[in-house]
């Protein structure tokens, strides 16, 4: 079994005792806890936090079952994807839609209309229809 750990009888007993003790604490998260922000949580899972900033996060993960569970699931997701061994880029090879189209569809679904007002930030549209061509050249 992958997880078998070779311990002497005393350590085996302490392992069992510890397991039960920790299980009793499993769902503990102090009330009023501020959870670790997504950016830091993700960096922790990727191992890119350095010592200076990780001390407080490790300490938080010891006390916060919610954030700890999140990191656990993210690691599992990471492993599952690695095992699938499918290049992510190959999954969706279709031409990406312009964000205005994506959002238009989204808002149409939510509000039953495609409200152009939310796209007020858009860059001015070019006269010609070859804007996508230009975009590709810019790459």
């Amino acid at each position, binding site marked *: 079994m*992958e*997880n078998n*750990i*070779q*311990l002497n009888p*005393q*350590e*085996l*007993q*302490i*392992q*069992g*005792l*510890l*397991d*039960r*003790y*920790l*299980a009793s*604490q499993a*769902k*503990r*998260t102090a*009330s009023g806890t501020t959870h670790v922000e*997504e*950016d*830091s949580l*993700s960096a*922790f*899972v*990727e*191992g*890119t936090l*350095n010592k*200076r*900033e990780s*001390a407080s996060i*490790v300490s938080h993960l*010891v006390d916060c079952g919610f954030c*700890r*569970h*999140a990191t*656990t699931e*993210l*690691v*599992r*997701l990471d*492993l*599952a994807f690695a095992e699938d061994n499918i290049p*992510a880029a190959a999954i*969706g090879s279709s031409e*990406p839609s*312009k*964000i*205005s189209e994506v959002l238009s569809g989204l808002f149409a679904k939510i509000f039953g209309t495609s409200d152009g007002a*939310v796209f007020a930030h*858009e*860059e001015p549209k070019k006269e010609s229809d070859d804007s996508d061509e230009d*975009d590709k050249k*810019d790459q």
Partner: protein
Amino acid sequence: MIGAGERPKLSMNEELQKHCDSAIEQMFTRCHENAPNFGVTPECFGSSLRATVARFAGSSDAELSKKELDDFLTLIQADDLFMAVACANGNERSWWEFDHQHRAYMERVARHLARTEVDATDVVDTVYEQLYGTRIVDGERVSKFATYSGRGSIRGWLRTVIWHSLVDRHRAGHDEVSLDEMTENVGEGMAHASFAEPPAGGETEMVDQITRDRYKKVTVAAIENAFNTLEDHEKLILLYYHVENMKLREISRLVESEDSPLRAWFQRKSQARESNPAGRIHESTVMRWLEKCYSKVLQSFNAKLRSDGGLSDEEITICTQLATQDLAGNSFFRNLTATRSAGEVSN
């Protein structure tokens, strides 16, 4: 949304400040060369990065050194951050790139985590809304992208955002949510360590109930104390293994990066040092780390029973065996749990 021109004040000396500004400028130049049409200004990019540096500098009381700053900036995913800043500002070209590079990945993550295809589609739509920012605060659109600081990869951040979004979605439909239930279809099951079978009785007949209760009480105190004497990274690895039921392979994945703080802590503590500290962390390495934790817990446990409980070596043996027998009944920590749970809000 990141306000252009804002310049977060950094608590560092003038020389380091100049060094930081210069490094940020170089990063901007490099990113701008890679994506010249994202419409990101040096002020906007610098403002975002300076805010991140300020948070980093404030994460410890110790004064930030030049090397620490350089190491930190090296780890920043500058191109991802550049794209996020551009998207937060609503740049059409950056959105196109973002959609092209990451939408399929986001859909794949969502399909993996969500229970149904509908949930997966909805959660991606929801996250896109958040990324675009449909909320207006003080006249400005608030984009989720503004919370990305380049600390990890943008994909790592996106999967975290999707995970949280799914949890929120699940919570909205349930008064009491179990996180385990939410993700029960994720991962590889609950295969876990096998524990010692309770040894055949013998001692039970030798001690009366009063003595047994006394042993229980001191054992609870001793195991709690032993766990609390561990350092945080040791506690965390035990919690991952025992509470989250992570496999050794999963833990080794967590410390796979050579920069992983958990890995650095364990390797620094290792007297013998790993033969190849920069090499891959195998399950056997994690196993050794766990074994060291158990050994430390055992030492503290025995020491506590000797000092506070006044127990002899023989009594400690009986005590441990009794506690192990009681594990099967799941009643050993009932009182402790009840006491601890009072007044606490669990997730």
